[in-house]
């Protein structure tokens, strides 16, 4: 048939009409829709058998019990462990996002070594033999004491293994990450003579007086503190927060009393003045169980009348007197201190002043009061036999000077390590172990800390993630992640009873990582002789089982053990001081420098404002980086794009010509950064608040390069009394960018 335009057109039209009536187009439409419901790039989780593993969370020293939900061999969720004495089913935001720390790009999957600036994979065998060789050579050269270790804590089997290794190797330089618990231990030791940890029976108290503590922002054990605050609320208890900024704790307290930052100790002493003057103190407790009350009384009456305290703190005398009366008259008053989540030890005299307040109202070791919780004593390993090099090495004074003539009371002064290393031309630390800590990120004055870490010839990091410290390390021996290992949880900070938890592996380790306990034991055996002999266990598992011997079964069964017969209420034998009583004053306390507020670094003329860090639950500011869920849950008044917003009082901002969301330059004596401004009436004029937990340079695209690390802008300030880092902020300048 002749194909001309017309027939061609009619053929097309006919064909179209034909296909329209056939099922083809309709089938295709349906198939496309089904395809749109099953796009290959949208993941479909595999079904499987659901199981739960009870364990303990070790992402922070809170000691919460967790129940890890698994589908076959995949961890899909972490939930609180119902009935656990610390958190009873609830769990903080970091614990809930734990699964994201198991999977993800930042995990180090095998031991790596830095060879002229680039990472090189190596096997575990090579790594341990190489490290052992370097340690042997150092010991041979007689500089055993130049090996140091920075650990997250000094309690529990792993830190003990490290300090035992250092001791038998011949170095006294074991450091613990600084925190308020340094000051609390020292305050308890000085007044009660006990080597113990402070515990707070929040749930039975009915009046909490908090000097800036982030009770519901991660202070102490978040699991317990959140639950206890809920109960306090339920029983109609009252809470007052004394802080320069309306933190979440202040927002949830009955009274927020704004105070000039750094003068909390003065207020405590002012309250003590009123309580003593008005005779509101617990006469019976003072007479029976304390000594040195008159010295204390004299020092407080002379030094801290309300008028002077009001001038120092900016709080009216009326408020001071009223607050002191309410506190003293409450049935179960409890005073706590320690800034925010307690990352910085703070001013020892302030801790003594607050502890004295508790003593004045007699709530030491009472329900609703402060408890001196004894150290865990389940670790009693065989005696060490030191060889010559070891005992000689141990005579050396510690690099940070802790325990020396200058700092008699301090046990660890990690903030001095960078100063000492940078000051000497040949680094006093030749090999540095870093475990469960990220000092390059969390120590103040990041610039000098980095300089020090680059100066230390050989840094060994046991981190599971590529964090800031590990990026500067020379050898990385990746540890299992907290869901892949057995570990004892010796303490829950701030929990009023001694409790031991057991972290159990939920799944087999995903990568070629090895548990740090095993690595220490293998390293010791590689070095042999006296060092090898000090570690009589085949591997860490047997060591743990033997150490926890009698508790092991209950721990495996329940996941925790609370020391039942602990009952410190019998005050007669609660104090181990010379007078077996609570000592308001003794020779050690007398030698300490008296109380005066720690001055923020920087002169007032060029730095008119005060920069104060604050902690938020929505950012992990400990050694673990915030998982993506936390950064996602962060308020948009803290982070926008990759810029942090600092809080400024609207009046102050107006003077500086800054308005909401404007970019500004924040400069301190230590550094400068570009930030955005958030106006908030929840902060004192003249104070700028910046969150901790941002400004990471390592980790992944979800966390790295966002915001500013407060520690870049600040530097340590030595507490005259204890030598700890008592900085609470730094002077700063905010100008329009």
């Amino acid at each position, binding site marked *: 048939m002749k194909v001309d335009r017309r027939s061609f057109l009619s053929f097309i039209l006919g064909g179209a009409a034909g296909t329209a009536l056939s099922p083809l187009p309709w089938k295709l439409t349906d198939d496309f829709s089904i*395809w*749109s419901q099953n796009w290959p790039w949208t993941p479909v989780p595999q079904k499987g058998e659901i199981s739960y593993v009870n364990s303990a969370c070790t992402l922070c020293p809170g000691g919460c019990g967790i129940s890890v939900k698994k589908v076959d061999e995949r961890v899909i969720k972490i939930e609180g462990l119902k009935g656990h004495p610390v958190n009873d089913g609830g769990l903080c935001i970091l614990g809930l996002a734990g699964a994201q720390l198991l999977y993800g790009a930042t995990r180090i999957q095998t031991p790596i070594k830095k060879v002229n600036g680039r990472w090189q994979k190596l096997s575990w065998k090579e790594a341990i033999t190489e490290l052992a060789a370097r340690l042997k050579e150092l010991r041979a050269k007689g500089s055993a004491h130049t090996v140091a270790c920075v650990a997250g804590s000094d309690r529990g089997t792993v830190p003990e293994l490290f300090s035992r290794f250092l001791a038998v190797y011949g170095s006294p330089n074991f450091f613990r990450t600084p925190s308020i618990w340094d000051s609390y231990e020292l305050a308890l030791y000085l007044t009660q003579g006990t080597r113990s940890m402070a515990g707070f029976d929040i749930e039975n108290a009915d009046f909490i007086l908090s000097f800036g503590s982030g009770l519901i922002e991660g202070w102490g054990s978040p699991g317990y503190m959140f639950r206890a605050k809920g109960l306090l609320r339920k029983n109609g208890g009252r809470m007052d927060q004394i802080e320069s900024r309306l933190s979440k704790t202040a927002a949830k307290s009955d009274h927020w009393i704004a105070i000039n930052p750094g003068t909390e100790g003065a207020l405590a002493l002012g309250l003590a003045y009123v309580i003593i003057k008005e005779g509101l103190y617990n006469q019976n407790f003072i007479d029976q169980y304390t000594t040195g009350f008159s010295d204390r009384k004299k020092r407080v009456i002379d030094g801290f009348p309300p008028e002077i305290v009001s001038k120092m703190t900016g709080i009216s005398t009326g408020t001071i007197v009223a607050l002191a009366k309410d506190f003293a008259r409450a049935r179960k008053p409890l005073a706590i201190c320690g800034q925010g989540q307690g990352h910085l030890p703070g001013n020892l005299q302030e801790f003594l002043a607050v502890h004295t307040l508790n003593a004045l109202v007699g709530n030491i070791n009472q329900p609703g009061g402060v408890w001196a919780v004894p150290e865990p004593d389940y670790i009693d390993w065989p005696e060490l036999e030191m060889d010559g090099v070891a005992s000689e090495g141990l005579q050396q004074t510690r690099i940070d000077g802790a325990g020396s003539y200058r700092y008699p009371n301090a046990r660890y002064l990690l903030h001095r390590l960078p100063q000492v290393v940078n000051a000497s031309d040949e680094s006093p630390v030749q090999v540095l172990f870093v475990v469960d800590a990220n000092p390059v990120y969390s120590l103040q004055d990041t610039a000098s800390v980095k300089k020090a870490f680059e100066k230390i010839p050989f840094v060994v990091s046991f981190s599971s993630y590529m964090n800031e410290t590990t990026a500067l390390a020379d050898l990385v021996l990746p540890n299992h992640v907290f869901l892949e290992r057995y570990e004892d949880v010796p303490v829950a900070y701030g929990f009023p009873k001694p409790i031991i938890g057991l972290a159990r592996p939920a799944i087999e380790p995903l990568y070629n990582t090895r548990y740090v306990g095993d690595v220490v034991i293998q390293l010791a055996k590689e070095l042999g002789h006296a060092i090898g002999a000090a570690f009589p266990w085949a591997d860490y598992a047997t060591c743990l089982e033997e150490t926890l011997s009698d508790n092991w079964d209950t721990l495996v069964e329940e996941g925790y053990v609370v020391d039942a017969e602990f009952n410190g209420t019998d005050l007669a034998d609660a104090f181990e001081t010379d007078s077996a009583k609570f000592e308001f004053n003794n020779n050690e306390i007398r030698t300490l420098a008296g109380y005066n507020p720690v001055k923020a670094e920087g002169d007032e003329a060029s730095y008119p404002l005060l920069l104060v860090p604050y902690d938020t639950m929505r950012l992990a500011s400990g050694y673990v980086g915030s998982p993506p869920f936390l950064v996602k849950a962060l308020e948009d008044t803290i982070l926008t794009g990759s810029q942090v917003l600092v809080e400024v009082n609207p009046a102050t901002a107006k003077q500086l010509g800054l308005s909401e969301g404007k970019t500004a330059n924040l400069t301190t004596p230590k550094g400068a950064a570009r930030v955005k401004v958030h106006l908030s009436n929840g902060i004192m004029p003249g104070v700028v608040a910046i969150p901790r937990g941002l400004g990471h340079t390592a980790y992944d695209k979800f966390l790295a390069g966002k915001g500013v690390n407060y520690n870049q802008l600040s530097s340590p300030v030595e507490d005259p009394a204890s030598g700890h880092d008592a900085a609470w902020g730094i002077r700063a300048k905010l100008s329009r960018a």
Partner: protein
Amino acid sequence: MDSALIPKGVKRCPAWQFIMWIGANGAVLTWGVFALLLVYFKGLNQTNMNNAYGFALWIWADLAVIALGGGAFFTGFLRYIVGKDELKNIINYAVLIGFICYSSALMILGFDIGQPLRGWFIFWHANVHSMLTEVAFCLTAYFGVLAIEYAPLVFENRMIKKVPFFHNLSHNMHEIMAVFAATGAFLSFFHQGSLGGVPGVLFGRPFGFREGVLVWPWTFFLFTWSAAAAGPCFTILITKITEAVTRKKLVKDNVIDLLAKISGWMLFFYIIAKIGDTLYWANVTAPSKGSTFMDFYTSSSGSAYGLWILFAEIGVCGVLPALILIIPKLRKTQATLWLAVILAVIGLCLNRWVMVLQVLAIPVLTFESWFTYFPSWQEIATTILPVAYGVIMISTSYRYLPIFPQERELNPIDEPAAPPEVAESEPEPTDAGPEPELSPAES
């Protein structure tokens, strides 16, 4: 070269000029299509919409273009049902504009939804209580009606007319066009109304919510009414622009005047009803929900939702054009007719803007603040896409189809079959008189 296709007795510009013109608009079209493909393949993150602004520029363009396309159903209704026979000289153009508007609307809906591949679920799993379902069904149905009304015009092309089947088909369709027009009017009444119902039923949004009768909120009737009123103004506007561009009189004055008069009175009574509704809403509905009138308008200067938008919509673009169109003297003078028609179209677009975007901008929760939005280039490109498509459709139809019956009578040419030598450029939309800068589907 394409002279065989041009209807007898009319002059058109030389082919090369026409192709240049289509090429220019084609470029704008491709820019729009490029943005369209970006949206299809990369997803709606290409736009500046967010969870506060689920509806944004596209839905407004959708509503505005359908309202402006209301000229087709109302002119058809007037001609076939009410019997205003004079309108037969403009009905073709009205249908063409309507067809362009509705096809643009369906195209916009095509890429404004998150999952275009299963967009037909709106028909298959229809929720009869939802206004949007009603819109979808009636919109597609009325688009069919417009296609049916437009088909005879296509069949009257010189070449297509030669095929007897098409010739007869077009003749038969003319016979029963009244039936189609009536069904079209019924369908249009409902979907124009349902588009008004879209904001009107939202009892979670006090700004948009209106009481009503049975299931239809007052905005249901106001939207149909305003579409029927301002739609013809849009048709008149496009006709005027086409006449200006082609420098030829295409429709007699009495036809334009008749349509303008009817639309003027419609607009007048619509504005009265609109004012009444706004007063009732401001004094009864909103206060019952705890909001005062001023809560719905930001006082901060320069923002898109100050009180100026209310006065612009009702005052300047509502009362003024209505008055002009009902006063014969003003209606007949060209300048004021142009002004009235343009203001009516702008008023319609403003009303649609307010009823879609301001509804979402206002914070209902007391602890939220006003949400701001500005379209991304992809959104703007895909909104100008229908304009370019409309210009091309109108240019091609004007060139090859007998759209204006009175054209030959108004522009007698001397030699009947001589090749057209008078060069007149095709309609030049951008600089032809004041133009609502974003009103789609005009030429």
